[in-house]
């Protein structure tokens, strides 16, 4: 009858405490306590030895002795809540002391210190869970601490650094007026206005296009609608600035359209008097508002399409039938019944479009010309010779504020439901078809769209194979050869390898944290949950350029000095991709009854075992698709990493952009097309694998 082993399930045995303490001691003895001069990838034995903890007279004995002093308390059981209090206070104090030590001495933490801190945090988790936090569940307590640490260290702290740079002068004096000086200085008003104009028009345009595509794909009786199902993959796998680049190939001064027109109409054009510049001749109309607008609409419409079509397919057909039976024609029904029903999705799509447009960095960088927006302006205040961090911070704050405002409006209007995005697009049988005339117009529109997108992608692909787009269309392999055949140490290989490595590490990391956050937010109620909740809001709303500035400010100085390392790029990619994991986790978890976990707990399983044996198998497909999507995001992201990548840690996107800047368009598009192609194959592979495993499982699981 009695199943009890000496420690009941879920109880912390002494070996848990002892192993954390011994890991900490080992890390202290063997790993560098302070940061190595050139990072963990490049060091000499000398440097390693010099960075070891026991070289530092101040902590030589204090820390290991303190750790050793914890050992007996792991073995004996203090009366009452003594053990809990002891470990909470002891590990909390040591963590605090170490932090203060690093901050006051302006030293950078090394790997060993990180490991020691992690062990101390684990002991802290044991302590507070013994005190009743998370009802004594140490694993959950640890997970909460881990997530809170991630959010505080990589979201709150960097954002605070932005504030600090705006509020304090370089000498550390408090100067709250500095912000106003910066934003009232020449040009800032115009930049904000430009950003808002662009965001507003792009939001509206993508929403309209999204409605058209949604109606067309669900309601039209036409063949080409099946193409729509594929077209939303493209922007996901395309680095954001590549659309801009292809627009230049097409519409730019030396673009195909101009060439064709000049060829047809002569270099002067038709109506242009001799001597004056022709309308089409080498004109730069694609640079500036029109170009950015077009590029953003092209790349953001699929998102809007997904939001709207998800809602459209869930509308009950009987509503529309009711209207039809009351003699309203199809057009009126569409206008008076269908569109009003779609209002939440339309609002959501509009706001999403606005946020994404304001946050977009790649397209304005490539196409902006004279039209400067916040995201590029932030970059240029740091990237140039100016190094004006105060200005970059102030602009970053404005951008963050704009995007948070829109995000909160979205959350309030559309509710938290918009968190859980609609994923599957399903067509039900009995829907009202479109009015004939309207369907014809839409067919024309959609066809034109596909032709345009097709031409754009073809031109990217071909652009890599011609000598000099616009001037010399001789076919050549030289761009690709330069990229790929000069050995693994040069050309595109280093950046490609970096991108792959970082993305491979970032994808599981971001999925883990994202799903943990989703788990905590959907399943746990506790004091302090608000921190994670607000952190999530920031993760969702913060634009990439702001992350870039914030990370430069936060991690360029001790105690955490990781700019220029691979670590920071991985963390950046992870943070940028995290909304995917959080959204996916939340929608999947909300479909799994908590009774399953409770049943497992009542079978004596602790929470770790429950998550491992019950939740993970049920979340498998979510995790796989979140990993895949995070991987793609990490490979294609540019806005934040461009601030952080250095010569040694160049990634694919930053390398391409640098070639664009130096005028090697051919090389840039050659690399871009290879990148897109790789991602496409990867996506198809993942879809193939998960698609198959799902049908396999379907029989068994649900």
């Amino acid at each position, binding site marked *: *009858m009695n*199943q009890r*082993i000496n420690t*009941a*399930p*879920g*109880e912390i045995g002494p070996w848990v405490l002892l192993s954390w303490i011994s890991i900490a001691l080992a890390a202290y003895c063997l790993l560098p306590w302070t940061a190595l001069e050139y990072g963990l990838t490049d060091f000499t034995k000398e440097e390693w030895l010099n960075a070891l903890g026991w070289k530092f007279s101040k902590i030589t004995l204090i820390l290991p002795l303190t750790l050793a002093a914890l050992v007996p308390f792991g073995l004996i059981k203090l009366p009452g809540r003594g053990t809990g209090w002891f470990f909470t206070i002891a590990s909390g104090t040591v963590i605090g002391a170490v932090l203060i030590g690093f901050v006051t001495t302006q030293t950078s933490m090394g790997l060993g210190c990180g490991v020691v801190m992690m062990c101390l945090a684990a002991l802290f988790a044991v302590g507070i869970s013994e005190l009743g936090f998370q*009802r*004594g*569940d140490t694993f959950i307590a640890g997970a909460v601490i881990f997530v809170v640490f991630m959010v505080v260290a990589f979201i709150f702290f960097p954002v605070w650094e932005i504030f600090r740079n705006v509020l304090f002068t370089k000498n550390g004096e408090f100067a709250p007026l500095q912000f106003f000086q910066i934003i009232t200085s020449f040009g800032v008003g115009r930049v904000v206005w430009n950003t808002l104009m662009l965001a507003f028009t792009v939001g509206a345009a993508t929403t309209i296009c999204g409605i058209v595509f949604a109606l067309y794909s669900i309601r039209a009786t036409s063949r080409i609608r099946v193409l729509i199902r594929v077209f939303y993959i493209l922007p996901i796998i395309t680095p954001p600035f590549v659309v801009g680049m292809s627009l230049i190939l097409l519409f730019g001064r030396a673009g195909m359209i101009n060439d064709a027109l000049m060829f047809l109409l002569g270099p002067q054009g038709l109506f242009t008097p001799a001597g004056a510049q022709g309308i089409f001749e080498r004109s730069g109309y694609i640079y500036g508002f029109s170009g950015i607008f077009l590029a953003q609409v092209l790349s953001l419409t699929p998102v809007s399409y997904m939001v709207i079509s998800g809602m459209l397919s869930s509308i009950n057909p009987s509503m529309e039938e009711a209207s039809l039976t009351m003699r309203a024609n199809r057009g009126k029904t569409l206008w008076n019944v269908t569109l009003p029903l779609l209002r939440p999705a339309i609002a959501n799509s509009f706001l999403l479009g606005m946020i994404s447009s304001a946050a977009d960095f790649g397209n304005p960088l490539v196409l902006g010309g004279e039209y400067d927006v916040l995201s590029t302006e932030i970059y240029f205040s740091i990237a140039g010779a100016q190094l004006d961090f105060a200005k970059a911070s102030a602009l970053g704050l404005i951008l963050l504020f704009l995007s948070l405002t829109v995000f909160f409006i979205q959350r309030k209007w559309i509710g938290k439901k918009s968190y859980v995005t609609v994923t599957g697009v399903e067509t039900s049988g009995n829907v009202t078809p479109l009015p004939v005339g309207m369907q014809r117009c839409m067919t024309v529109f959609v066809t034109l769209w596909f032709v345009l997108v097709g031409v754009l992608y073809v031109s990217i692909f071909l652009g890599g194979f011609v000598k000099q787009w616009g001037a010399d269309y001789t076919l050549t392999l030289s761009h690709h050869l330069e990229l790929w055949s000069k050995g693994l140490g040069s050309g595109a290989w280093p950046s490609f390898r970096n991108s792959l490595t970082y993305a491979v590490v970032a994808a599981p990391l971001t999925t883990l944290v994202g799903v943990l956050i989703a788990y905590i937010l959907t399943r746990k109620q506790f004091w302090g949950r608000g921190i994670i909740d607000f952190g999530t809001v920031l993760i969702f709303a913060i634009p990439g350029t702001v992350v870039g500035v914030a990370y430069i400010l936060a991690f360029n100085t001790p105690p955490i000095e990781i700019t220029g390392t691979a670590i920071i790029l991985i963390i950046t990619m992870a943070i940028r991709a995290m909304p995917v994991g959080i959204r996916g986790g939340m929608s999947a978890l909300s479909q799994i*009854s908590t*009774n*399953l976990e*409770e*049943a*497992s*707990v*009542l*079978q*004596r*399983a*602790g929470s770790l*075992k429950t998550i491992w*044996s*019950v939740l993970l*198998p*049920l979340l498998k497909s979510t995790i796989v698709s979140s990993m895949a999507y995070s991987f793609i995001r990490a490979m294609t992201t540019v806005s934040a990493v461009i601030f952080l990548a250095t010569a040694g840690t160049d990634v694919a996107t930053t390398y391409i952009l640098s070639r664009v800047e130096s005028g090697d368009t051919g090389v840039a598009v050659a690399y871009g097309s290879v990148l897109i192609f790789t991602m496409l194959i990867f996506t198809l592979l993942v879809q193939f694998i998960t698609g198959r495993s799902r049908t396999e*499982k379907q029989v*068994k*699981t*649900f």
Partner: protein
Amino acid sequence: MTDSSIKIVLKNVSKHFGKVRALDGIDIEFAQGTLTTLLGPSGCGKTTLLRLVSGLEPVTTGEIWFGDENVTGLSATRRDVGMVFQSYALFPHMTVAQNVGYGLRVLKTAPEEIESRIREVLQMVAMDGYQSRYPDELSGGQQQRVAVARAMVLRPKVLLFDEPLSNIDSKLRRSMREDIRRLQQLSGITSIYVTHDQAEAMAVSDEIILMRNGTIEQQGPPQSLYHYPATVFVADFIGESNIITAELIGSGGKRQIVFGDIKISVSVDEQMPYANGPVKLSLRPEIIELLNSNPNADQRLKGVIVQRAYMGPVIEYSVETKAGTLFTRVPAHSHQFQVNEKVYVHIHPDEIIIIPENDDNN
């Protein structure tokens, strides 16, 4: 096995969700080896009480004891409780054997023993041979049996059932509830069973606890709740009942109740606590008899049939009388009355349930 069963005691237990008082100062004792049913309308706190006992939810105040062990602070993992959920909560990605053996694997039982224990417990619920099926390959009733098997396989100290039969059609429900009862008696595990079906409660329980708004209305064996409801609420909830107002008069062993225009002597105990004055009567339909002649006028209520419904074996009548509209049921083979027909209503005096007027606010 019965000697190892324990009693469960709740001492002044309350549970608040924010401002909602789901449970308010509950004191109960569940005797060892018994099956107790928690009965009550939706939202009265049955599930909450069960979850407090299981440890899935912490108490706001109060204590829970299993035998002489205070388990209030113990988490669900450490309480040694088995539970059958309304939704069964079988793990969809595991076979029947994996589902049932889950807890054994958690406790690192030897593989051979796991297998034999699975077989043993599946035999008890008549599901041996289904080991390799997945839950979605089973019918609702079979899933439910597997859920019961899983709850029992670790031989817990306490078994909890949260409306285990509510997703099963009514024919099957009858046999399933007998199975559960049989298993519980066989194992002697102290059990708590939630339902809002009073017939189910009467059929399976040693004891019924009727709850209302987070408090206990009455506790006792099924017969005592049926025959001696303490409040109108209980009389109304358990079985069917006509509730009418009356007055209690007289003294000693000869007391009378006055209602409508009649007076009926009731033989009540000397110790009967009721004071003279207004009381409520609960008249079960089966103690109301309809007659068309009247040999004994002052013992009979005059009435008119206002409604009649043919139900197969029985006919239901509503009769309007001076004491109010009474509802009764008569075998179809006896004399049949028509609507608007005048009748005399005979009430068996010994079966009248008297409920004191004062402590009720219904």
